[in-house]
């Protein structure tokens, strides 16, 4: 029998103990970042040296800005990964992210429409995976969590799949009683 007693104190999400991403998650982020930006920097430097018009308008010391940006970004990535955390509760999944804009998203498992696990070549090498959880009506995934171990992703997916079954079993048991 379903009961709906008035609740004096609601479970508070701000007390959730978030679990950090996998140790290798930072490598995944840094490698991805470098794969995109190193070739871009190489192109900028090549254009600067081979095109005389651009060479005359950009002084050589301005090129030092590029490695500084790279270093700052690598540092930002470290703190950004540390700021991320996931928590799986009995009825929902919580994910926090962001350094400047801090977001905390809570997605009830009962509202998850489908689950996807992605593994790119770098993720496969590092034993990582990306988990995407979709509810209804959103433009894209409600939760997009990269940097989890492959096993943890599969465990979460299994937990989500079992959720409906467990609920049904509970309700069947209560009907039997």
């Amino acid at each position, binding site marked *: 029998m379903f009961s709906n007693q008035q609740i004096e104190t*609601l479970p*508070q999400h701000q007390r959730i103990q978030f679990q950090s991403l996998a140790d290798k998650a930072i490598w995944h982020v840094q490698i991805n970042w470098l794969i995109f930006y190193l070739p871009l920097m190489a192109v900028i430097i090549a254009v600067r040296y081979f095109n005389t018009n651009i060479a005359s308008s950009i002084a050589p010391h301005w090129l030092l800005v590029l490695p500084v940006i790279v270093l700052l970004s690598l540092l930002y990535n470290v703190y950004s990964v540390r700021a991320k955390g996931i928590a799986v509760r009995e009825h*929902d999944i919580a994910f926090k992210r962001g350094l400047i804009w801090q*977001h905390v998203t809570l997605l009830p498992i*009962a*509202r998850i429409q489908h689950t996807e696990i992605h593994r790119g070549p770098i993720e496969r090498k590092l034993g990582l995976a990306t988990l995407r959880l979709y509810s209804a*009506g*959103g433009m894209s995934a409600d939760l997009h969590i990269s940097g989890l171990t492959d096993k943890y992703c599969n465990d979460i997916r299994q937990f989500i799949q079992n959720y409906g079954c467990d609920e049904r079993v509970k309700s069947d048991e209560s009907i039997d009683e």
Partner: protein
Amino acid sequence: MNNNEWQRVSRWALVYFIVHFAIRFFKGGLLNLLPVLVVFVTQVEQKWFWAQIATSVAVVGLFVYAFAYFINFKYRISSEQEILLNKGVFKKERLTLKFARVQNVNIAEPFYFQPLNLVNCIFDAAGSNAQEVVIPGVKLNHAEQVREQVMAFKAQLQQESSDEQVIPDEAVSSSQTLSISNAEIAKFGLISNMAILALAALAPFINAIFEFLETAFIDRLEAVFNEQAVFIGSAATMAIMVAVLLMILVAVLLSVVMALVRFFNFQLYLQDEKFKRIAGLFERQQLSVSLEKIQSVHIKQNVIARLLKRYTVVCPQVSSGGAGVASAHKNKQTLVMPVLTASQVRQVCSWLFPWFIDLKELNFIKPERALLYKNTVLYALLPTCVAVVFLHSMFDLLVVLWGLLLLPALVSMVYLSYQKTGIALYHHENRYFAVFKTGMLGSQYRVFEVYKAQSATTTSTYLMRRSELKSLYIQLASGSVTMPYLKCNQANQFVDFVLHEIEATQRSWF
């Protein structure tokens, strides 16, 4: 009704297939043929001759394809409570749609079927266009029988799955109606942004239109103004102004026509916990929406609607992705009540929410004043500074002072927007409803039952955290709602409450 024999549709359905494929060709195919068109325009000699040949081939191709499609099109309502469809010309398709998966059965009556008493029977499978099954050119009574059969099966399913016994309520089952006159519908043309849509549709031809206007219209107007010595200033400027005014008038007229085409003779019924809407000029579209499937109610009033004292009410169902509310509104399954008076809004909303009162009377929680300060800096002070610097670099001091007039206008807009932002909760018979209010010159209300939310997010910046503030974002199955700059404890409490409602409520949310 169950039939193990494959059935053919009426031969008049061929007209539907021709129209359907012609529209599909213009919508999708023409864009793909754009490179060929470019080559044709730039490279081919004797364009008129080859254009005639190409058009004839396309028309013959369309007729042959539609005929082949018609020949192959067969359907069957099987005894296993499913609709089977055989269709396709080059790629044969066998489609099975179980009654349990059908969300709605809509009956559309295109103008070319009206004298024949034929209709299109449309089965919607998941609120998405891709999942739509259409059986064209069937008799109206046959379509209604099929609809009854599907809905009876679904009602039986729901009754079996429901823990609680549904007690039929005589008062609810008696039909309630709402009709909107066509004069009112025309007002929707003025209120809505259909004029912009009409102009957007003309966008690919905008260069050609401007060239035509310049040669056929503006040059002549300029000549007329030049002859009239009374006009002070440039005749060319006057001609362009008149042309722009005329274009706006044409756009508004188009907008009114589009509104009439879509909502002509609008009638809405509430029967057996379902909204049934019939509207349309060329095609009488019947839309049937269960009250429980409505995810939220969107009550809108823009500036023009405010002047006319009218509202638009939108009841979206689950949207299949896309940009939130906008995508939900374009969804065919979204129930739109285009022009309602305040009393009609109360009437319709009280069918949906028995507690419904004038929303202005609700006790709205306003955002903190920090939002007003932030928006004043970002959207009033900063743009004014940029405008003043820009004007200063180009004009003299007097013009720069005119630029400063921008500041009070922008500050007023920011203040109005701040005043119209709010959130309220309403408790009625153990059910909780949330109302989100936004607006500037107009106003918008989103009303939804809390347990229908999909997820909740809080956001805070460094400065917000220092002031103990958070913004709230609730994802619905039909878009999303946001409430900026709430006190931290209010935002947290709201999120906890939403989660509790979602997780503890056993009722189906769609």
